């Protein structure tokens, strides 16, 4: 006979076969007397108060049918009027009872099921077949939020009464010393129990519902439906019954099954205890004893055990000597030990240790931040150890101690070179006894990619139209500009397009104790000289203070200046400024950029004398303090930009501006304030900024003059047609990706073939779409999106024939990425602009990436592949944006703990520059590199592109004159400062059937004509018809001169209306276009025939209609111009 069978056999008639499930279940039974001394129901259980109630130890977990390791004792008693129940159960180590459900009158609160609660099923009518047969079910939490109802077997068609509510009952509870004490009294009258019902056996389930983790534990060891009547524990009442109480199951882990029997009257009992651990034979003991009235006898079985984890199976049976009357029966399985994970709280404690990290493969660095704000034992934490370990290995690659400031600790440390594999970043807290000792571990995946550390676009060369840098003495020349340099590391003068921009030399102003200090200059030196880069140096001093100025010149004229302030003992200075005196006449326009776009000022430089503008007036979003990163001052053709990527090592008063414009007569001084608060010069400071005169290069001349580049195509000789694929999915990408789906570059070959043949390869598209099934369901909207895009992309490729000279450029987003990209897990930390970022593998960010070196390497690698079918790169939204990363991103932390973001200026410039160089490296000097820069004409970034895209802004049906002022257009949109073709978005109004469409498009044409803007649009027809006539006139030909209204000596004046104009001169004929920017009216146009070398007897005609225009007595054309209309006047 097996041990198990032996135990079962010993149970005799108590074994009940339960239908649900397959196991045999011994139902608990108790026989209880009526209590003479009733407990005080105050929510504080005293053993003495419950001495006359049956006492049970432990509830059975529903998960494994063992007594749950979470401690509990419960009592069941009665007097002749009420049922009494008490439950004392362990609460979580944090002392908190999860109690959230809130009572709401008599409404059943379902949510009580998700709380720690007590649950009862009471069947006072068990076995009855007539009369009241109801039984009752209730759940209640410590707040007494309830869910209850009754069941009536006598009403089989509608047995459930959810409206039933247990009333006039007593429920008190408290959490005392880590235990939840619940005391309950249920009057029999509330559950329809009569005196007669007490003569019958009742059914009673007593349950404790736990959370963290969830468990429904109960008296019996059956896991069946709660309303299952046959499996309900049984309770009998009789005044002569003894009180049986299980006192304990073990003593300090050793099995010690102790029970007491209290005889109300002298009573003979038979006590049987059996205990077996694991598969060992049970230890059994039987006592037959007569217990005197009023006496409590103790019975103990001590049995062998196998340690705290060893399972025990125990049977306790107290009966009358012959076994017929059961006073107590319970069979249960249990273990003496308490596993550490019996509460998920330890897991929660671990979750309360927030570990964030970044790993920088290019920099061989790791940044770790640990936050224990939510940790209950945070006050005991003394430190932490962080390790980086290759997964599967024991020895960490690095181990570092973390020091907490408050509840946070952060560390940046070097790492070894990480080869391909998975790494564990782990942090283990140190401190008092309650501090979790388990490490918190995060995983990092290092993959090595073929593009890493490539040199694409980095060849040392000068690409046209730039020219090699020339240095003669202290004169340094780049294309279109000559800089005269001085000994303090600044410029005495810069001549741009043959005009000097400075009214006097730039200079440093140093103030101390309210006084400007005299500056002593050092020596101008050329440290290195190559055609593509020159390094110059200067220095200056003021009292004990001295500074070195080192300038790296790039061949687009960008001067990257590093100002090193050397320590000067005890000296303190109040201010350090760079002053740039500009010729006011050449600084009529101002463009200032903070972080973000569509809020940057572009327009006329404010009028007035003295301080006319400061950067505290300018818009920005996330820049910390008064730092402002970019300003340009100039005219339509030339100007000067100052810029910085961050304010590292500046010393700033929070309220004083960093940029100021001061006008004194004909001099407009740009003042850049690096130090605005008393600053001891007790350490070295290194301040980096840039200067760049504009234009940075000539407007494009290859393959044709920029004026003949056209988005859209019609049969006009010498027009350069181009188009842009406006998003990545057009060419097979899933999102903002470097490469098409599955890194399958065959689509580029298909596009290339389409561009050569003009044939749309439908079979390829069908095959290609098969790839998408791995992440999108056919037939869904998303599927249709991809289908439409790939079809449109292929159609565009087939329409932009190489044989006709088309240039086709694809959209890319250097600020966005899809998390599904294989590179993301490895390189996300370098690329994302946030201090830390979740390691997600799905989703994307649109404008939160900074194209740092590793991003550039990846991008350039795949740009080169895209050159198989495309002719350039389009970059979306290259505005300045806050990058909070302190390792790859260049952000820094000030003494207040604030992160000062950098703005991505140098990274974005490098991306655009490398791309331009790449095209030349690949023998593709003709390209279409488009920078989308809406409202952020950042010269150092846009310098190496050849198309600037603006006006993704002010959409709708308004006239274009109401959207953008001409001053803003000159300062930001016309492309001349960067030598880029100016392109604008269409304006967000596409409904050609709208009655307003033609008019709004005409206002767009008028605005575009006088500013020479190209439009990303393919309509309306009259726009292109006009351009065709313009090209036929000779626009864009070498012998066709163009005069812009921002030029000095502009040969056109208009009276009577507020208008802007443009003049084209070819041979002996001229064309003037006048666009109204006011209210319209009678306009009179004067053309300076003499300046243009024309005879004054030319007859003005309407260029569009050919009709002769009315002239004034002095021969000037005069006409009525509708508000915002334009007139093109041909003089021939």
């Amino acid at each position, binding site marked *: 006979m097996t041990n198990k069978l032996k135990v079962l056999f010993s149970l005799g008639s108590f074994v009940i076969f339960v239908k*649900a*499930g397959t196991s045999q279940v011994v139902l608990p039974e108790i026989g209880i007397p009526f209590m003479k001394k009733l407990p005080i129901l105050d929510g504080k259980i005293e053993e003495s108060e419950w001495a006359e109630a049956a006492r049970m130890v432990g509830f059975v977990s*529903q998960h494994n049918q063992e007594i749950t390791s979470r401690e509990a004792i419960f009592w069941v008693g009665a007097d002749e009027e009420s049922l009494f129940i008490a439950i004392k159960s362990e609460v979580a180590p944090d002392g908190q009872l*999860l*109690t*959230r*459900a*809130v009572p*709401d009158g008599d*409404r*059943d*609160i*379902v*949510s009580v*099921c*998700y709380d720690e609660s007590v649950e009862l099923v009471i069947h006072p009518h068990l076995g009855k077949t007539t009369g009241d047969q109801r039984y009752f*079910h209730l*759940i209640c939490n410590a*707040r007494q939020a309830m*869910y209850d*109802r009754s069941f009536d077997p006598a009403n089989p068609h509608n047995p459930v009464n*959810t*409206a039933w509510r247990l009333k006039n009952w007593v429920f008190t509870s408290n959490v005392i010393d880590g235990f939840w004490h619940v005391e309950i009294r249920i009057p029999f009258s509330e559950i329809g129990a009569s005196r007669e019902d007490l003569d019958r056996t009742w059914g009673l389930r007593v349950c404790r519902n736990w*959370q963290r*983790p*969830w468990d429904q534990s109960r008296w019996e060891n059956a896991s*069946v*439906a*709660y*309303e299952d009547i046959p499996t309900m524990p049984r309770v009998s009442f009789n005044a002569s019954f003894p009180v049986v109480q299980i006192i304990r199951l073990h003593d300090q882990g050793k099995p010690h099954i102790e029970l007491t029997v209290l005889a109300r009257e002298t009573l003979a009992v038979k006590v049987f205890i059996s205990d077996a651990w694991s598969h060992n034979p049970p230890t059994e003991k039987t006592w037959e004893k007569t217990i005197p009235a009023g006496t409590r006898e103790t019975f103990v079985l001590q049995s062998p055990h196998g340690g705290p984890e060893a399972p025990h199976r125990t049977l306790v049976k107290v009966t009358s000597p012959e076994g017929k009357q059961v006073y107590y029966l319970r069979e249960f399985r249990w273990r003496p030990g308490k596993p550490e994970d019996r509460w*998920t709280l330890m897991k929660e404690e671990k*979750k309360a240790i*927030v570990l964030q990290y970044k790993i920088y493969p290019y920099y061989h660095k790791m940044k770790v931040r640990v*936050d224990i*704000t*939510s940790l209950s034992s945070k006050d005991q934490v003394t430190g932490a150890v962080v390790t980086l370990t290759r997964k599967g290995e024991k020895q960490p690659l690095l181990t570092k101690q973390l020091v907490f400031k408050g509840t946070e600790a952060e560390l940046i440390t070097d790492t070894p070179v990480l080869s391909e594999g998975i790494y564990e970043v782990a942090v283990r807290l140190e401190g008092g006894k309650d501090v979790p000792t388990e490490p918190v571990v995060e995983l990092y995946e290092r993959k090595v990619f073929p593009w890493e550390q490539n040199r694409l676009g980095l060849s040392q060369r000068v690409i046209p139209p730039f020219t090699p840098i020339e240095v003669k003495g202290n004169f340094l020349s780049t294309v279109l500009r000559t800089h005269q340099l001085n000994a303090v590391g600044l410029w005495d003068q810069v001549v741009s397009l043959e005009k000097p921009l400075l009214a006097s030399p730039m200079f440093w102003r140093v103030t101390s104790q309210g006084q400007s200090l005299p500056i002593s200059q050092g020596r101008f030196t050329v440290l290195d000289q190559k055609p593509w880069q020159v390094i110059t140096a200067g220095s200056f001093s003021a009292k004990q203070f001295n500074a070195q100025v080192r300038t790296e010149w790039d061949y687009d004229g960008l001067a990257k200046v590093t100002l090193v302030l050397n320590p000067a003992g005890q000296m303190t200075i109040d201010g350090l400024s760079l002053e740039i005196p500009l010729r006011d006449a050449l600084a009529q326009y101002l463009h200032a950029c903070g972080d973000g776009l569509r809020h940057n000022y572009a327009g006329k430089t404010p009028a007035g004398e003295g301080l006319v503008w400061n950067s505290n007036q300018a818009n920005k*979003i*996330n820049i910390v303090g008064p730092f402002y990163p970019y300003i340009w001052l100039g005219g339509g053709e030339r100007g000067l930009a100052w810029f910085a990527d961050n304010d590292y090592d500046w010393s700033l008063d929070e309220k004083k501006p960093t940029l100021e414009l001061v006008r004194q007569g004909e001099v407009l001084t740009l003042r850049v304030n690096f130090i605005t608060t008393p600053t001891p010069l007790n350490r070295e400071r290194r301040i980096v900024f840039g200067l760049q005169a504009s234009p940075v290069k000539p407007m494009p001349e290859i393959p044709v003059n920029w004026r003949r580049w056209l988005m859209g195509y019609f049969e006009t000789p010498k027009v350069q047609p181009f188009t842009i694929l406006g998003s990545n999915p057009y060419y097979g990408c899933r999102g903002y990706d470097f490469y098409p789906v599955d890194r399958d570059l065959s689509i580029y070959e298909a596009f290339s073939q389409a561009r050569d043949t003009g044939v749309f390869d439908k079979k390829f598209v069908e095959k290609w779409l098969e790839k998408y099934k791995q992440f999108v369901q056919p037939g869904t909207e998303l599927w249709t999106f991809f289908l439409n895009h790939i079809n449109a992309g292929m159609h565009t490729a087939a329409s932009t024939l190489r044989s006709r000279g088309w240039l086709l450029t694809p959209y890319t987003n250097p600020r966005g990425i899809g998390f599904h990209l294989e590179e993301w897990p490895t390189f996300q930390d370098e690329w*994302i602009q*946030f*201090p*830390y*970022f*979740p390691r*997600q593998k*799905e*989703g*994307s*960010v649109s404008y*939160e990436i900074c194209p740092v070196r590793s991003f550039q390497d990846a991008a350039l690698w795949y740009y080169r592949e895209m050159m198989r079918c495309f002719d350039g790169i389009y970059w979306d939204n290259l505005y300045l944006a*806050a990058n*909070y990363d302190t390792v790859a991103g260049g952000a820094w932390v000030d003494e207040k*703990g*604030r*992160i000062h*973001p950098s703005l991505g200026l140098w990274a974005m410039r490098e991306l655009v520059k490398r791309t331009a160089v790449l095209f030349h490296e690949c023998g593709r000097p003709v390209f279409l590199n488009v920078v989308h820069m809406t409202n952020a004409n950042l010269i150092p970034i846009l310098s190496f592109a050849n198309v600037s895209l603006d006006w993704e802004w002010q*959409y*709708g*049906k*308004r006239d274009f004159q109401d959207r953008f002022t001409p001053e803003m257009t000159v300062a930001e949109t016309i492309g001349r400062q960067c030598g880029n073709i100016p392109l604008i978005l269409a304006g967000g109004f596409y409904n050609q059937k709208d009655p307003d469409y033609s008019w709004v498009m005409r206002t767009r044409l008028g605005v575009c004509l006088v500013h020479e803007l190209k439009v990303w649009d393919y309509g309306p027809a009259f726009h292109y018809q006009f351009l065709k006539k313009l090209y036929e006139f000779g626009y864009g030909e070498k012998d066709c001169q163009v005069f812009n209204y921002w030029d000095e000596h502009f040969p056109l004046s208009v009276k009577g209306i507020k208008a802007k104009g443009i003049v084209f001169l070819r041979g002996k004929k001229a064309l003037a276009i006048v666009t109204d920017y006011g209210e319209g009216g009678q306009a009179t146009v004067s053309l300076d025939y003499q300046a243009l070398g024309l005879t004054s007897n030319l007859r003005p005609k309407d260029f569009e209609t050919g009709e002769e225009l009315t002239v004034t007595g002095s021969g000037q054309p005069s006409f009525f111009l509708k508000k915002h209309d334009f007139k093109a006047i041909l003089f021939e």
Partner: protein
Amino acid sequence: MMIRMPKGIWPWLILSLWFSSGLKSNESPLSPWSTDPLLRELTAEIVFYLSFDGGNMKPEMALGLSDYRLTGQPKFVPGLKELALTAGGGKSGYAVYSSKLNFPIATQGTMIMWVCPVAWTHYNGPNTIFAMTTNFSFYLERQGPGHNEKGELTRQEAVLFLVNTPTTGNNCINFGTNNWPSGKWRMLAAVWKWPEMALSVDAGTFSVRSVKKPPLAQEFGDLLVGALGGEETLIDEVYVFKKALTKEELQKIYQAFSREFNQKGDN
């Protein structure tokens, strides 16, 4: 068309099945919170829950105080299970609850709610606040659209998850609502685990952003739910979790409850 349980039946279903853990899962439409192991574990993370099913603003679950201050007269109409709160429309109201323990906005958590457009013009309309903190540092709301007299769009319509404190700066995630028809319920989930915050609609792709520095607890006021003004919207089943739910957890919730509410996902 949405099918609703007759009043009083839904809770019974849950309970009867809750107690019937021996039943196979395909025998009855079990309550996801109790039958799905993942969701059941998540119930321990719930710190606040408004069902509105009692026809009042009383929270059905509140880890902190359940008291609330009322402004206006909140209007309740048939919702996903029983009743839903009408937000906006000028004839409802809102309630303010203690944020302490109920709304862990300064650490980590998730606010889930189902919203349903009732009278959205998709042309010109004021904002409808679904939930906010009383000092305006947190919002989960629908920004109403704006057009000027020429019919030009001046303000995009979108649902917004916005956090704006002196420490975090102004951070907003939005999701366009131009194509949201009346009568269609959507599940919004605002998730935060500083410095990250995320917004998801119908458990779709997370829009994620990161604030420059985690906020301080004192930068948030009490929790307000509902609105007097704004374009009329129904709100139902508002849950706050003290855990930043993962995308998988949200999808599980969405899939489970959109089935229960007879909704079809619209990712």
